């Protein structure tokens, strides 16, 4: 299945991309996707990142479906 991945702030800088499309096996969870991204980008640590699925916050064990839009970002500092 294909999912869209969005990165923000320091993660965007480290990976050098704001948006990726990824092919993932069925049953992939958010934390598996994070581990894959870390494996592909030496030095990248997503420890402490917040995760969003289709624009809602989710815990790292949330399961992904085809067409989902996932986002990883640092703790938020708006306001």
């Amino acid at each position, binding site marked *: 299945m294909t999912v869209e991945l*969005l990165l*923000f*702030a*320091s993660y965007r800088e480290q990976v050098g991309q704001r948006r990726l499309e990824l092919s993932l096996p069925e049953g992939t969870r*958010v*934390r598996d996707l*994070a581990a894959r991204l870390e494996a592909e980008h030496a030095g990248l640590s*997503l*420890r*402490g*990142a*917040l*995760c*969003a699925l289709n*624009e*809602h*916050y*989710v*815990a*790292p064990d949330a399961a992904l479906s085809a067409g989902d839009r996932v*986002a*990883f*970002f*640092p*703790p*938020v*500092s*708006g*306001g």
Partner: protein
Amino acid sequence: MTDTPRQDYFFVTEERLEPLRYQQLVSAPAYGAVTSFVGTVRSPNKGQVVRHIDYQGYDAMMYTQMKVLAGELRARFDLGGLVVAHRLGRLGPGEASIAIVVASPHRRDSLEACHAAIDRAKALLPVWKYEVTEQDEGWVAGSSQAAEPL
């Protein structure tokens, strides 16, 4: 001005925020109390003179989370109109980054809802600040309150 709009207004923009316009949006005779909060770029901050802050946002999710925030507030408080506005892009010292306006028939609901709104906005809205001061620069530490982090 005879209607009684219990309406939500959400703005994510790179333009200047317009607190007076937002106050007018929610003003109606049925709602005798309007509380507004405006957050601006503070300088000096922690003793350092700030040149500017770049606000990066996940704008689609900002709107989604503004809706979540509004739902929380309406469950707890008796409200009329509600405005949540966040600016993105480069802001100088004293420029407004966030504005929240809450109308209610009751002053307590209006004041407490406004306070809750800014606290929740800081926890929920996917926005990141890159602060440039005269000494150094970097991403500002944020809040992980919204969800279990990785």
